[in-house]
């Protein structure tokens, strides 16, 4: 005689690391028989950005803060949308086109919570994770990309972004 489990606080894992992202490991970390949906998002490096051919991308992070902020982003999104587990990782160091720079695995009882949570995590990563990228181009030269100013300039809460997709810029994944 069993009954469905009560809603528990979400379980969150976050890392910022120079190691390659292993998609199956991310998925395994969130899998649980109580859940009916597992969703994996990978952001990958594109060859063409703003009509220039990219040969390499260098990610720099404020590591200690980025790790805490990524965990907070994942926790907030999972709580808001009712997901059970989130494992999120952001790369640092040099990446080539095709390689994953960010990975987000979400598990939830139902798919809607998983999709909403995953979307919010990647949007908030772009909005406030202290990570920067520098592109190197086939025609020579390199440049730090224009980023998104962190809202409120000095940490005023950005407010819930539930289900809201940010405006798609040219540099979006």
């Amino acid at each position, binding site marked *: 005689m069993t009954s469905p489990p009560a809603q528990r606080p979400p379980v969150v894992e976050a890392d910022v690391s120079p190691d390659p992202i292993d998609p199956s490991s991310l998925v395994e970390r969130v899998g649980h028989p109580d859940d009916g949906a597992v969703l994996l998002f990978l*952001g990958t490096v594109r060859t063409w950005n703003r009509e220039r051919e990219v040969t390499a991308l260098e*990610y*720099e*992070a*404020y590591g*200690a*803060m*980025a790790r*805490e*902020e990524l965990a907070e982003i994942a926790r907030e999104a999972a709580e808001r949308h009712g997901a059970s587990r989130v494992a999120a990782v*952001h790369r640092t160091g040099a990446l080539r086109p095709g390689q994953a*720079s*960010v990975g987000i695995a979400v598990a939830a009882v139902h798919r809607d919570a998983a999709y909403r949570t995953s979307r919010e995590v*990647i949007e908030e*990563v*772009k*909005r*406030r*994770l*202290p*990570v*920067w*990228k*520098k592109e190197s181009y086939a025609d020579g030269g390199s440049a*730090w*990309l*224009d*980023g*998104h*100013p*962190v809202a*409120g*300039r*000095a*940490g*005023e809460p950005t407010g819930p972004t539930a289900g809201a997709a940010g405006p798609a810029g040219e*540099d*979006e*994944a």
Partner: protein
Amino acid sequence: MSPASPRTATIGVQVRFFALLRDRAGCAERSFEMPAESTVADLLELLEREIPGLPSGLAVAVDRAYAPPGLELRDGHEVALIPPVSGG
């Protein structure tokens, strides 16, 4: 910023710079002396004077969390200047 007087105590603040800010500042971190009770907003004003060509849209993190302009800085705080972010 609180009015400076000869008796005003000062605090030392070590500021970290990332990405293009590191290029602009010419270093990864630098220490600044400020009057006691200085705030995040005071620090930003000081940095704008000290570092020519500092871009706009900067945030400040204190002890690894985004800090409001009114937060008072103290000796030993871990302070970082956060340029517009481009993760993902």
